[in-house]
Structures are given as structure tokens and as C-alpha cells.
């Protein structure tokens, strides 16, 4: 590995262009775009029209100073491309057609920008190719009046390639696949199919299931399969199948079913729109696809369907990989609070506990202190003082304002309980995020805060006691919507703790687990614009020096930029976490493997297990087939790393499908993050005096 030179601006602009081509088939891969571009040269007028429109749209956006990520993704320019291709499929290149092309291209960009804001803000939906439908509709309607254009530019879509003699179903499928590009030719379709197969077996499969499901149903209805395979509008089935089965939903068996249901329903629309729109001389285009995909995604979102993709990446495989590792690594529960104590306490009763944590009060914890044998008292256990938890400090689990306190109820002797004032002495704190935390059964007159006080995480609230309905001294903790003691509880998680020896960033521990909160974290070791210089070694031989720079994406997420890849990271509940790797980079994937997460609060000895994204371990093609298998059969499991931290060194044992196994080691430093790390045969050493 050697340090790659800085990419020229030209290359990155070119990538945008290629990405627009690949986005037409839901892929974000420049090489796929390049091949599609080549394929579109089957009709040079069309290819050049498409290119012109994208260049115009992109150039305009670039001159307007729009953000890099925004432009690079290709999502915003692919509508422009489609419009360009659409215009090119009707008109040959002449000055007049170029003019209309530019008008249409810029209009598309404007509509895309405007609509995408509205759609995102109000419906949390992407706009797909709606702008294209609108603009091409407009062009078709308007050009009826442009007789000048008509005369000079209209051309019969010349068939440059010979037609093969394939069975109707094959010709139909390939033609439809290519029709998405306005090049309804079987050979072009074959080319596209091969690219899809290589780039994303899942998309390829979905294009097949989508097309044939839709066409067969349509054939059944009309009574002629021959006619059905001849209908070019059936490319909508392909798009719907792919969008639902692999793009907006994370690929899985359930998503496949959804996509087939979507395709089946869309048969109605495809045929209806055809009748209706052709009355006005409008092509059907992608309207059915847009309607069905958007409606389904919105409806499933409203139902909180778990397979909705949280982040749409370069391909369904990438989304699946990301979703799998993210879903397994990050609990989406929005409320996470610290433990309300210091030291190692035991869960006496957890969520849905059998005694009192039921119904409206099911989201609650009771904690006691116990000795190594699980006993909560010394001596006979008849007096309050015998109990280890009694009069131990209770600390605030959140930052917020104290809104309710009770401090004067007596601590009940062992064997007695006060069911009239069942919550006993208590504190209710309103979080800055709106929810409330109630802590109960505190010792009489032990409160150190009063109503109206602002507290920090870790502020001393009072001492553990036995007031109220409490059989033995313990801390009761619950999260609730309102400030009144004993309000109905909300679901929540505990953050930044060890259970036994195992570290949890966020967790929901069960009964009898012994929990130790980590002390509050210091600052993040990696800050924006920081440059990290690393010397690389492979099996001990130097392989040059590489630089990482910490940057921030438009959503505010930090990442390490190595110029060939991006490693996203952030702070999750007092822990440093690597989220995902985009691009290919040994250095970044090694860093992720060596350090998937790191608690920033002080702790000298812990273990944890991590599910890791496949893209850290497997090359593209292999990963794609592994992921297809995993989507259909829930196999193989994602790779897993078992990590152990001891006195400054985190060592990991990684094992993944196909017998991949190796060790990692990273030397951590509280000031600079890490000093060196090793993954398999590779070692990376931090250079000493670097800029910060």
C-alpha cells in the first residue's frame, strides 16, 4: 500500500457524472455508471443528450456553490440525466434540441431540489424520479407546439443493433431492463443485467422477480402473455421490485414479499395510467413506479416496519451490511440514562419485574448492593444498618431540573412497608430532553437537592433508604413522561456501564446482573481537522506513511478521511464508536476492526463483543454473494469480534464466515486516542509530533 496522490477535481466531477448513470438502477458506483454510459452509446444522440443534461445541471449546481456530498451522491443529478435521455430519445442533436435539453435539465434540477425538500420535510420520503416524470411530461406536452423543433430534430429511434432471436419472455425482460434507459434493446438489456449481476446480485434477482411477477399477472388478466412480454411499460415492475425489495427496505425475505406485493398491485396502475395518460399523448414512464414505491414506503414507515432502511448506501448489499451491523450494534431506543449510583450494584428487579414492575410501571429498575455471594446484608439482616445499600450515595442519572421532592418519610424497619406513601422519599428530575426520571425510597432527610435545583449527571441527590413500599433498602429508578410521582413509565435504556466485566454503551440489563457505571467521560480524542500521520508496515516491512484527517459530513457526523475511504465515527453515550466504512481502505478498515468502540469513561479492565460490517473483511464480489445468502437465509452471521481491554491495550479476536480469523491489538492513549495498532499482518504506528 502506498500513499495515493490527491485526486484531481476533474476526477471527482467525472465520478459525479458516472454516479448519475448508476443511480438510475439504484447503485452508487462510478464503474457501474461508466459501463452504463458505454452501453447508452448504442444510441449516441441519446448518450450525448443525457451527458449534456447532467453536465448542465451539475455545472449549474456547482456554480451555485452547492455542497460536495450533495452533488457527489448522484441522487440529485440522476433525474436530470433521465430527462436528458428522455429528450434524446425523441430528438436528435440539433441546436434547437440542445436548447430544449438545457431548459429541461435545469428545470429538473430546480424541481428536484424543491421537491426533495418538501418530500423529506413532510413525508420523510425521497422523491425518486418524480421530477423526471413532471418535466418529461411537460416537454412532451409543450413540444406539440414547437413545430420548428419537430421538423428539425424528430427522428425515428433508429435500431442500430440487430435483434436477436430469443424467446419472448427473455426479450421482454431484457428490453424492459434497457427501457429504463430509453434503449429498449435486448443486447443493451443483457449488458445491464450482467453489470447488475456483478455489482449487486440482490438487485439483479429483484429485477427478475419484479418483472416476471408483474408481467405474468398482467398476462393472466389480458389473456395474452405474448402481449404482456411486449409491453415496454413493464419496466415499472423492475423498478418497483428493486426499490421495495432492496433499496428502501433492507433486503430480506420479508422485503422480497413486500416487493412482490408492490409489483402485483402496480399492475393495476401501470395499465390504468397507460389508458389515461395516453389520452393526452403522454408516455407512461416511471409514474406507476413512483406512485407505488412512495406509497408503500410511506405506509410501511407509518407502521414502523423494522426493515425500513435507515440509510441508503451504494447498493442493497451495502445497506444490508450497514443495517445488520448497525441494528445489532446500536439500540434505537431514544432515552438513555446513566446508572444512579457509583460502584457495583445488582439488579434486584428489572423491566416487567414480577413484583411491582408491571403494566404502566413496567419500565423500572430496582437496585441493591450485594456481596460476592449475592447477599444484600451482613449479620442477621434484621436492622436497616445491616443492609449494604443503606445510606449509600444516590447520584443523578441525567442533567436536568429537580421538579419534585419528598424527604420526610421514615425509613421502614425491615419487615414493614408503607403502602400509603408507596414511593417513599423521592426526587423527580426533568431532563433537558423532556422526559422525567423518578428515583424513590431514599433515606429520610437525606436529600441534598430541592425543587428547582439544576443537577448534572452524577450530582449527589441523597442517600439510599427504605422509605415507602420497600422491603429492603434499594434504589428504584424509572423514566416517565410527566412530573408526578408514579406516572406511567416510558421505555428507556441504561448507558455506559459494565455488566460483570462486559461493557455496554447502551443496554437493558436483566435481573441479578451486577452493574458498574463507568465514570464520566473526558473529551473525544479526535477533533475536527486533526491530522493523524501513520507509518504502515506489512509483516514488519515499511509500506510508507499515510495521513488521516478528521472531517465532518453535512449531517454533522465526523469521519476519518484517508482520501480513498471514509470511516464514520462519533460519540455515543460516553463512548467513541466507529459507525461505518465507506470506500476501500486497508488502513481505515483495520482501524475499525481494531477499535469498533471505546468507552471514554475511566475503566481498566473490560470485555465486549461486537458485530462487524462485512465490508471490513471481505472483498466486494464475495461480500455481495455472502449478503445475498444472508438476506435470503439469514446466513451467514455477520463477523464478530471479541474484545478485551486491559491497562491501555485493547486486543480483539475476530472471526467471520468462511473461516476468517485473526487478532487485533490497539494501544490506547487518553490524550491522543491511540499510539499504534495491529490487525493481522498489518501494523500502523502513529508518528510522534503531529499537528492538532
Amino acid at each position, binding site marked *: 500500500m502506498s500513499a495515493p496522490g490527491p485526486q484531481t477535481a476533474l476526477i471527482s466531477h467525472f465520478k459525479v457524472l458516472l454516479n448519475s448513470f448508476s443511480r438510475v438502477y439504484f447503485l452508487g458506483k462510478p464503474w457501474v455508471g461508466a459501463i452504463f454510459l458505454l452501453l447508452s452509446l448504442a444510441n449516441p444522440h441519446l448518450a450525448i443528450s443525457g451527458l449534456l443534461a447532467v453536465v448542465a445541471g451539475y455545472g449549474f449546481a456547482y456554480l451555485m456553490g452547492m455542497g460536495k456530498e450533495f452533488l457527489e451522491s448522484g441522487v440529485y443529478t440522476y433525474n436530470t440525466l433521465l430527462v436528458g435521455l428522455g429528450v434524446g430519445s425523441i430528438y436528435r442533436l440539433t441546436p434547437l434540441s440542445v436548447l430544449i435539453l438545457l431548459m429541461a435539465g435545469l428545470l429538473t434540477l430546480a424541481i428536484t431540489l424543491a421537491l426533495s425538500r418538501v418530500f423529506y420535510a413532510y413525508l420523510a420520503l425521497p422523491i425518486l424520479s418524480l421530477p423526471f416524470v413532471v418535466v418529461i411530461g411537460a416537454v412532451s406536452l409543450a413540444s406539440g407546439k414547437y413545430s420548428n423543433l419537430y421538423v428539425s430534430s424528430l427522428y425515428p429511434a433508429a435500431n442500430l443493433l440487430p435483434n436477436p432471436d430469443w424467446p419472448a419472455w427473455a426479450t421482454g425482460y431484457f428490453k424492459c431492463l434497457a427501457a429504463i434507459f430509453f434503449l429498449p434493446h435486448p443486447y443493451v438489456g443483457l449488458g445491464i443485467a450482467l453489470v447488475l449481476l456483478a455489482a449487486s446480485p440482490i438487485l439483479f434477482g429483484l429485477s427478475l422477480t419484479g418483472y416476471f411477477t408483474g408481467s405474468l399477472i398482467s398476462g393472466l388478466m389480458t389473456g395474452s402473455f405474448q402481449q404482456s412480454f411486449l409491453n415496454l411499460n413493464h419496466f415499472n415492475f423492475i423498478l418497483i421490485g428493486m426499490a421495495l425489495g432492496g433499496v428502501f427496505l433492507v433486503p430480506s425475505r420479508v422485503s422480497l414479499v413486500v416487493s412482490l406485493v408492490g409489483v402485483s398491485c402496480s399492475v393495476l396502475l401501470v395499465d390504468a395510467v397507460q389508458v389515461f395518460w395516453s389520452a393526452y399523448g403522454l408516455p407512461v414512464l416511471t409514474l406507476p413506479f413512483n406512485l407505488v414505491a412512495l406509497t408503500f414506503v410511506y405506509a410501511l414507515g407509518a407502521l414502523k416496519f423494522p426493515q425500513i432502511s435507515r440509510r441508503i448506501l451504494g447498493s442493497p448489499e451495502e445497506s444490508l451490511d450497514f443495517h445488520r451491523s448497525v441494528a445489532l450494534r446500536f439500540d434505537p431506543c431514544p432515552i438513555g440514562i446513566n446508572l444512579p449510583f457509583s*460502584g457495583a450494584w445488582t439488579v434486584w428487579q428489572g423491566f416487567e419485574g414480577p413484583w411491582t414492575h408491571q403494566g404502566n410501571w413496567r419500565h423500572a429498575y430496582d437496585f441493591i448492593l450485594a456481596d460476592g455471594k449475592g447477599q444484600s446484608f451482613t449479620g442477621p439482616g434484621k436492622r436497616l444498618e445491616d443492609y449494604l445499600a443503606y445510606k449509600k*450515595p444516590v447520584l*443523578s442519572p441525567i442533567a436536568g431540573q429537580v421538579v419534585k421532592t419528598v424527604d420526610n418519610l421514615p425509613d421502614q424497619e425491615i419487615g414493614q412497608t408503607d403502602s400509603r406513601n408507596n414511593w417513599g422519599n423521592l426526587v423527580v428530575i426533568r431532563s433537558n430532553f423532556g422526559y422525567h426520571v423518578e428515583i424513590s425510597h431514599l433515606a429520610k432527610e437525606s436529600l441534598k437537592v430541592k425543587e428547582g435545583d439544576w*443537577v448534572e*449527571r452524577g450530582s449527589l441527590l441523597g442517600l439510599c433508604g427504605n422509605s415507602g413500599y420497600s422491603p429492603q433498602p434499594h434504589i428504584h429508578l424509572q423514566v416517565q413522561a410527566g412530573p408526578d410521582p408514579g406516572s406511567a413509565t416510558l421505555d428507556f435504556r441504561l448507558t455506559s456501564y459494565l455488566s460483570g466485566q462486559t461493557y455496554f454503551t447502551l443496554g437493558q440489563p436483566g435481573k441479578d446482573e451486577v452493574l458498574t457505571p463507568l465514570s464520566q467521560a473526558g473529551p473525544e480524542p479526535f477533533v475536527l481537522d486533526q491530522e493523524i500521520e501513520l507509518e504502515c508496515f506489512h509483516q514488519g516491512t515499511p509500506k510508507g506513511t499515510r495521513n488521516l484527517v478528521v472531517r465532518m459530513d453535512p449531517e454533522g457526523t465526523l469521519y476519518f478521511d484517508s482520501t480513498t475511504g471514509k470511516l464514520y465515527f462519533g460519540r455515543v453515550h460516553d463512548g467513541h464508536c466507529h459507525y461505518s466504512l465507506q470506500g476501500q481502505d486497508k488502513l481505515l478498515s483495520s482501524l475499525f476492526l481494531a477499535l469498533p468502540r471505546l468507552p471514554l469513561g*475511566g475503566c481498566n479492565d473490560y470485555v465486549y463483543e461486537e458485530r462487524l460490517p462485512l465490508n471490513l473483511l471481505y472483498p466486494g464480489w464475495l461480500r455481495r454473494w455472502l449478503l445475498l445468502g444472508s438476506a435470503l437465509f439469514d446466513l451467514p452471521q455477520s463477523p464478530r469480534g471479541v474484545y478485551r481491554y486491559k491497562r491501555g491495550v485493547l486486543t480483539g479476536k475476530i472471526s467471520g464466515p468462511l473461516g476468517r480469523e485473526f487478532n487485533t491489538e490497539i494501544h490506547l492513549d487518553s490524550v491522543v486516542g491511540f499510539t499504534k495498532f495491529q490487525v493481522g499482518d498489518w501494523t500502523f504506528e502513529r508518528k510522534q509530533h503531529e499537528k492538532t
Partner: protein
Amino acid sequence: MKEPYQKPSVRKLAQGSHNKYGSGNYYGRKVRTEIDGQTIAGLVERFGSPLFVYSERQIKEKLKELKTALTVRYPKVELAWSYKTNYLQAICALMHQGGSLAEVVSQMEYDKALGLGLKGKEIIFNGPYKPMDALETAFAQGAIVNLDHQDELSDCEQVATQLGRKLKVGLRLNLDAGIYPQWSRFGFNLESGQAWEAAKRIKAKGLLEVNGLHCHIGTYIMEPEAYGTATRKLLEFAAKLEAELGYKLDYLDLGGGFPSLSRLKGAVLPPEVSLPNLESYAETITSTMYRYLKPQSLPTLYLETGRALIDEAGYLITTLHASKRLLDGRKAYIADAGINLLYSAFWYRYNIEIEKEVTGVNEPSVIYGPLCMNIDVVDEGVLLPSLSRGTRLVLSPVGAYNQTQSMQFIGYRPNVVLVRENGTVDVIREKETLSDMESRECLPPDLKLH
């Protein structure tokens, strides 16, 4: 879990002097037949006499007791094992495995800690004598250094200049915590303004930065409130440091000094009764800290507890070699262990237990060591029945300060063993031989006899 059935048994009275007959009774016996399942006879048979015996179980239990007492009250606590208390490798290693850092007061102790695999930043370097090269190493390796005096402060500034960066240092303070005698010879005095002067000087020079305060008010402190006072005074000083000089405290180090269950000479009550437990020390310290600190910026609390962690886990088995009658009529025994092995005999009266039941009436007895020196007295008056030659006694607690301060004097030092939790016994220091003792000697050739 159901406990396995055990046959009921009647044990003879084996309490100390504190039983229902009161002290000084004629038939009270202290008997210890085993240490963690290893019989006294068996141990001596395998490893000889005298024999130091440590209990891994007790070491771990005590460490956990102290650590728990502190951590359930305060979230940022680190113990630092005070090497001088006992720096046998196995003992230090047990402490480190249990999560303790090292507290050292000399280059030798520093080297020992490194040798056991600790990193610089896991070592707290204290003491009045830190030679220049020791300071250089410590700072280069990131150790926590607590300054003892003005000259050392200048030395550190020199090191900072050499290393070309600002160094973080702690100040050792001495203060009046109501303890007599006040250990005023170590560190900078608080009340007289010496400490404040030192801090101002550090600020003025700008080569160092104060990030910690240290204070060791003494050893065998029987009054928890003294720690409350020390904590309060240190935190008031810290507040002043922050307000006026902008120094923020990373740690507060309260030194050692908690008592072990050992009986000082002249103490009337047995230690179990007279001494506060570790919980009360933890309570006083941490509740004082909460009163003065904000949760966002809690300093780490370091404790350098030595004696209280190791003393009770150490036993010395000694064999009675002979008995005689003294002129005043008292019975005297000559044991095979004396003050060469028991430095703490100068202050402590050990708990003396017989290896087995012995009949007969108690009488006041003296136990002498084997040295041919008048001061070699292990106990001047203990009530024992008449014991035959070869009887073994178990002395405790002897885990603190005896190993490190034992003298190579007159005889060989004995084996030291560790009774492991898994039921085995490991030798952790072999008994001395003549060649050990002479290995560093050089006899000029012309002085050789032939």
C-alpha cells in the same frame, strides 16, 4: 445453594482474651491449627520453620472490601499499593491484578514496579529523595509525581526544560488534621502558607502545572475524622488554586494510614473493638468530597493504603526451641524467629496462637527470639500454658512492614509462602543461603586464607 452437610462438632474455647470470663483467665486458649486449610504442622514440614505465610484469599478480600467501600460512595477511585509496606513480587502482583496502581518512594521501588510490568502512568512517585535521573525517567514515562520540597520543585523545572514540555505535578502537603505527631517534615505546609507560595512560584515560572494534591497524615490513624479534616483542607486549597491560579485538580491523593487489626503496645481494648472499620474512613472522605466538588469535574481519589490491606493476611509460624525460668519466676521461651524478622514487634503485640490444644493453666510468659541480643523480645508477657519444646506458635498480623524491614542479621531469613485460593501453596521467596548473603561481597585475594 444447599450447603454440604457437616458433622456438628464442639470446639474448645479458642477465643482471645475477650470472652465471657474476661481477660487474664487461666484456661483461655488461642489455637490456630491451620491457615486457609493448610495445617501448621504440614506447612512447617514442607517449608521449615520459621515460616512467613500469606493468604491469597485474605489479601483479595481485604482489597475488595476497601475498594467496594470507596467505589460505592465515589465514582473515581484508584488504590495505589504502597510498595514499602511489602514489596515481595507476588504480593505486589496480587495487588496489581486486583487493579491497584503502585506507590513508590525510591528509585529502587520504581524499578520494581516497572519490573512487574507496570507502565509509568500507573506509578505514583512520592518521597523526599528523588534523584535527578529518577525524576527524569518518571516524567518521561508519564508517572504521577508528588513534589516534596522547594529544591525538588527546581529539579522538576529543570526536567521540564530538558523535555521541552510543561509537566504536570502534584504537591504533597502537610497539614494539621488533629493528629499527633503531625508529619510535618514531608511536603509543603498548608497552614503556614508554604504550599501556596510553592504553587504561586510554579505559576510564575510556567514550566510546571499543578494537577494534584497529596497528603499522608500518618500511619495507623485511628480517627476517621482526621481524614475528613484533611480532605476539607485540601479541597479548600484546591478551590483557591483553581480560582486564583487556574489549576484544575485531576486527583486528590490522601496517602495511606488506615489501621490494621493489630494491637499497639499499651492498647487496652483489642483492635476489633477499638478500631473504626474501613467503611467509616470511606464515608468521611467521600461525604466531604461531595460537599466541595461539582459532578462534572470530580478528581480521581487516590489512596495509598498499605498496612490495612496486607497486615492481617500475613502470619509467621515460629517453633519454640527451648524454655527456661527467669529469675523473677516468669516462664521464658526461645523461639526461632525474633526481631530480625519482626520489625513491627517494636510497636505491636501480636496475636499469638498455639498450633494445637494444650492442657494446663496459663501463666505469664516471655517469648524471646534467637538472636544473641538483649532487645530480641517478641512478647514480654503473654498468657500461655506450659508448652513443650518444638511447639509451634502462629504470630499475626505480620504482613505489613516486616518483609521490607527485616534485617539480614545473625541468621538466615526463612521461606515465605502464599496459600493460594485453589488450595496449593507457592513459595514466593526462598529462604536465604550463605551464598545469597555473600554474593555481592568481594574478598581481596591477599586476604584469602589459602
